[in-house]
């Protein structure tokens, strides 16, 4: 928790996701389909930055990558061990928000690991899904305001309506 490496490009989630309000899925477009939420290709950055901040020196690496096929070496922050089969798609499609694991990334100038990523921490939610589950439409709204009481009430309804099991068996994550 708290791991905050310096990234090769000074990309600010606070500006892009927070102030500009770009949806998470604009860049992390695989999150709804795959177990893996992808880091965007440099060409995605260039969709805007071939117009905006065209000459900015901070974007030198991005321009180079888009031009030369050389990948940007982003430093990995969130990592599950290789014996854990975590699937992004099933969580975000069923009402678990990004914020539950990644914290308020839209307020992070430089991303840091906000949650412990331990098995006990995973199980907290798996045992009591009603405390976290929201409507899938609100998954990418990281600033959703909801009181604990209301969450409990709504959450219980979602768990019932969506037929959410609290999966605690080993095979749910380990195969």
């Amino acid at each position, binding site marked *: 928790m708290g791991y905050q490496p310096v990234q090769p490009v000074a990309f600010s989630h606070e500006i892009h996701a927070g102030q500009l309000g770009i949806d998470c899925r604009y860049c992390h477009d*695989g999150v709804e389909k*795959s177990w893996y939420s*992808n880091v965007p290709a*440099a060409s995605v950055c260039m969709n805007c930055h071939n117009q905006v901040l065209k000459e900015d020196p901070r974007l030198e690496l991005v321009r180079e990558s888009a031009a030369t096929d050389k990948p940007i070496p982003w430093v990995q922050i969130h990592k599950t061990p290789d014996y854990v089969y975590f699937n992004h798609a*099933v969580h975000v499609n069923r009402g678990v928000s990004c914020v539950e694991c990644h914290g308020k990334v839209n307020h992070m100038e430089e991303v840091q690991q906000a949650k*412990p990523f331990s098995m006990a921490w995973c199980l907290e939610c798996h045992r009591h899904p009603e405390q976290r589950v929201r409507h899938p439409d609100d998954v990418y709204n990281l600033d959703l305001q909801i009181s604990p009481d209301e969450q409990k009430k709504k959450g219980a309804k979602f768990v019932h309506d*969506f037929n959410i099991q609290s999966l605690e*068996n*080993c095979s749910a994550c380990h*195969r």
Partner: protein
Amino acid sequence: MKTIPPSCPEPEVGAKYWRSLDQLADTPEFRQWVEREFPSGASEFNDPVSRRHFAKIMSASFMLAGLGLAGCRKPEEHILPFSKKPQGYVHGVPQFYATARPTRSSAVPLLVKSHDGRPIKVEGNPKIPGGNGGTDTYTQASILNLYDPDRAMRFAKGGATASRDEAFAYLSETSAKFAANGGAGLAFLVERSSSPSRERLQKAIAAKFPKAKWHVFEPVDLDIHRKAATLACGRGVRPDYRFENARRIVSLDCDFIGAEQEAYRYIRGFANGRKLSSPNDEINRLYVIEGLFSLTGTNADHRLRVAPSHVVCATARLLQEIAGGDAGSHVQRLAAEFKGDAKWIVECAKDRRSSEKQGKSLILAGHQQPLEVHWMALAINQALGNLGSTVAMLPAPIVKEGSIEDLAASLNAGQVDTLVMLGVNPAYTAPVDLEWSKAQAKAKAVIRWAYYEDESAAGVTWHLPAAHYLESWGDARSGDGTLVPVQPLIEPLFGGVTDLEVLARLAGLDVTKPYEIVRETFGGLISNGNFEENWKKFLHTGFWPGSALKPVKAAVNLDQVNDKLATATVAPLPSTQQLEVIFHRDNKVDDGRYNNNGWLQELPDPITKMTWENVILMSPKTAKALGLEIKNRENNQLFVPVVKIQVNGKEIEGPAWTQPGQADNTVALALGYGRNKTGRVGHGSGYDAYQVRVAATPHIATGAKLSDTKKTHGLATTQDHWAMEGRPIVREANLKQYQEHPNFARFMNLEEPPIVQSMYPNPLDARKKDALHQWGMVIDLNACVGCSACSIACQSENNIPIVGKEQVTRHREMHWLRIDRYFTSDPKLPEDQKVDDPQVVMQPMLCQHCEAAPCENVCPVNATVHDEEGLNLMVYNRCVGTRYCSNNCPYKVRRFNFFDYNKRTPEQLKGPFYPNPVTGEVAGEWGVTQWLKDPAQGYRTGDEWDLLKMSKNPDVSVRMRGVMEKCTFCVQRLEQAKISKKIKAGASGDVRLKESEGNIPQTACQQACPAGAIVFGDVSDPQSQVSQQKANSRDYAVLEFLLTKPRLTYLAKVRNPNPEMPDYREYPLSVEEYSKAAHANPFESHSGAPAADGKGHEAHGSKKGAH
């Protein structure tokens, strides 16, 4: 919230750990430290060390490792995204492509799974007409060849690495040179192929080089079916068998379940004809006349042991019975030579003569039998009205081609200037009397295109690396003539080229890219409609609909067949002094082409259960007559005598092994082993049967002598105990008994212990109430033919390592799914005759997923537990390797990873595995000194490990040493299906997988099974196929009296013998064995009850232990 410990660098096993220590050993701190702590011990590093010293040094090093790395820090890892993402690609979502694996003169249509650009799993294309997605062992294992670190990886000129451009320039030069003289002196030696593109290029070459010679060579040539039919019918045809129409099948030494081409299709048809859903169903009946016990023989209802050289007489006798007075004089002459049981043939003939069976029977001749047998088989088929019904005659062009004998003759005559070899390996496989290597050296230049730089690569001018079929563009025709594409899933890993490109360059064509060549051919074949649309559809579906060849009318003239038999002669019956030798295609390595495939090498042979080598097979009676004592156990290891076979003026030595049910006085030699130059996996496996094989008698040689060399050899077999000892593990009945007692399988249930109230209720009973699914499986033993495709499919899907011969001798093989093969015999016979004509039963054995699993109770760390859907889970990370679970498993299906098998090098597979690091000595050197000199020794190099890792399924953990593992019912596929369903459900509650919606996944074994014998699904859904199968009256659980409540149950086998046959037995032999052991016949003790519907027996069935 729980605090987490600081994360450490991943505990790398072996290689990296030692390497880092080794590097540390050179730092000044290390030296200083060692000197302070071990002033006298430091110099002992290179000397044999005592255990005590070793422990001291090691513990010191461990401490230093902690100090030297300055604590545990999270290693910095990078994510490298694309700079431009390919269209439609989502990282982590597998893609499927339709392609095909070319076989000798056919192809297996496939659907291949690709994960992030790496092909990882091969499945049959289920959309192909009549297809069920089943494949065969060779196809399942072929993916490992793609990642073989020993394959040809370079263009080589005279043995030295050269560039691709140079090679292509040489091909152009050659083309130009022979264009000038019309191809005089140019010769080709190729393998068979069904590719329309290659046929087209061959024509282009023939047009450009009219004087060039085209020779085809296959050491195991399955083309004889076409040749025989073409000669007998007088037009270009080949037979394609339609088992689904056949009620009576006679195999004349034809192993259509194993050794013949298209076995996976024939198994499908055959097994469909064996499936019974109710006692009133009809099933087919299989008669087999053969010498060697083949897979087909194990499935026979009646089997006649005949030396293969005398199958021709048995066939003539059968023809005589069926044709009566129309059988010609030569047929009569051959029939008179038949010395076996005449009644067997007479009754067998009667069974298929009855009028309602017109066109419903099928007579097959094996590829190892001479043309005469094929012709007579065709004549019988014709007489029984089978042509056009069970035997479809498909058009096959008559092509002019030379043989390898012709080529050897022209080479020796100095008529060949340049020899082009595509794929063949004649230096190893050519008949030994051709002295191929000498002949090959007489060509001025030799261009060879092949997958390995093997025996035939010696002395060639140019060696071109072949691309794997998963790296190639190509096309082919499957068995029924359907046009299929060969589509690459990956760029050639080592720059390999395809045969099409080589031929196009030699022909001097402008279009040399295989992709363009295949498109051009396709355009020529399919001309109506929009080309691009057609092409897309072709690649997408993996075949061209409606392109199967239309059967043509063909007839066989009995008189002409008789005339053709004029020259047929029959060798005298073999004796112990004049043995008969059978050369046969191996069930695992084929003719040697899969020799370097570890999965196939370690797969137990379906009949002998032998791994890693071939043996010299003979009947137990023959072994006794020759004075051989086969079984010797020393220290729990199996040693057998090494014998010398002298035949055709040559001799070889190999280990002798007995095969119950083999014809007496015959010895069987499997081809494909004992290679001089192969990869590191195949190196040193078995003996080379090609060394005594001559051109005149490629399959059956007579007049052989056998002598004991007085040497012994250790074998690695996974099941050398043959019998069930009267236990009801596999249960069977004859059709008659099944009709009388539909629930006969439960008659053999043993007495269950009295059920008392359990002190601890099974937690599953409560938990399963809330679960969405309950998984279960049924295996139909009546459909299972024992082909072992499931076993390899499981290995591929679940990242199961191979362990090497030495470890197999210690019974440490890792297969999660094995096939148990039991021989059953008449208990009344004297001991030495029991094994003469045994019956065989096959039983796939895997984790039974017991509801009350004995393994779970004894695990001290909860590493094996149940989930609410009824799966017995194995949690690798919790496992500490006590192996209690394995000891307590009554089915013996748990596997323990004793070493880091995944990381062992191919050399290490040969053993010995015990260079005890302290006291062990290997090659005169102490283990520890070797270790300190080269810490990475015994582990794969980085490159090789990377290559091997590419073949792994990323959805399944690669287990490390010290961990128990077993079948999971492909939990990764179940979880993936559930996840997909949940993603689709989104904000709704529709998350249950339903068979009616088609979203229940198949397990890997189920998907690969060509027979459709394995059914998996949700047993809580009464409509599911698996529930319906479990409701079948033949359903039973193995060792049910232990009250383990397995989720995997079996459907008992039903044999269909003919009561008129001389070898008819009222009960299957296993029932007789059981009756003897239990002192009661289960059927007789139930005979008082009403018979027709079996209802009367339910009471008996549930009253356990009535007998």
